[in-house]
């Protein structure tokens, strides 16, 4: 068989070929980590409670308030980044359709490893924010705010809904 000088034979050993294929197949089957399949859940853990208010007197609840501050717990893929988007109401609704103004500031949002309210990182809940899930796919999100009853605020009970939308980022 004549060979040109400097060239290598084009044939690959059959045994080596099979080993490579098996290795690649193994990698493909086990490359998908189990936590990528973990479903994303967002659970409301604690309401934002302003309690008793007087007409014309503002009241603020801090995101670090373990009794009255709002909290939601997220569970999803381990070590994933998630985009947090709050839908914040401008007011609460009360008797006969009366509305009680609410406001949220740039420091009223926070996140932490699960249930560690004292070590949370602050963020502005009025704009989307990226937070990390821990190795177990967990994070807690906290919310404070200010209720601003008017001077002639109608007496009675008021409530509003706060929604957190979470998207797992690629």
């Amino acid at each position: 068989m004549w060979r040109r000088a400097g060239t290598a034979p084009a044939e690959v050993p059959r045994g080596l070929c099979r080993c490579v294929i098996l290795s690649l197949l193994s990698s493909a089957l086990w490359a998908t980590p189990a936590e990528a399949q973990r479903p994303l859940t967002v659970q409301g853990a604690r309401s934002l409670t302003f309690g008793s208010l007087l007409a014309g007197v503002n009241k603020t609840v801090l995101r670090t308030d373990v009794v009255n501050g709002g909290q939601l717990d997220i569970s999803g893929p381990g070590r994933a980044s998630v985009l947090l988007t709050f839908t914040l109401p401008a007011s609460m609704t009360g008797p006969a359709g009366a509305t009680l103004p609410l406001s949220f500031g740039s420091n009223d949002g926070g996140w932490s490893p699960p249930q560690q309210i004292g070590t949370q990182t602050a963020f502005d809940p009025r704009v989307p924010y990226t937070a990390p899930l821990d190795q177990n796919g967990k994070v807690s999100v906290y919310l404070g705010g200010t209720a601003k009853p008017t001077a002639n605020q109608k007496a009675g009970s008021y409530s509003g809904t706060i929604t957190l939308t979470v998207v797992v980022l690629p």
Partner: protein
Amino acid sequence: MKRLTQSLAAVLFVVGLTSSAAAQSNSGSITATAQVQQPINVNGAVNLSFGNVFPGVNKAVLLTDAGAGRFDVTGQASTPVNLAYTALPTNLANGGNNLPVSFTSGYNTSNSAAGATSFAPGSGASTSLSGTGALFVFLGGTVTPAVNQAAGTYTGTVTLQVTY
């Protein structure tokens, strides 16, 4: 070689399929709540009137007497409140003349001094408004005119503060 290439292509296709994941999205909600209370209103409904007094003769007005004073309080039903007299004179005055006075007080959720709970005006009291948000605070007292007390009309102002 061709078979190897085909095999590798199939494997890569499988790898591609298992690596992709659909974007996940979900949402959860909490509520914001508050209770706005009725404002407190304190109305000086009846003045404390000692009527005619005579020099050197003390005169007392009991809570149950017709001359007793009364404050009418309204606010949030069944809510605890604190009562404090912020102005409690030691004398009634007539120009430069003073008539010493001391006071007694009591409260009741109904407009009846007979069932009122007594308290020292200088110490204040804590109680709750009625189920309809009402409270009545009664005021009595004693004046002690001197034997040479100048004649005239003596007055003073008593102020009651009620807070949640």
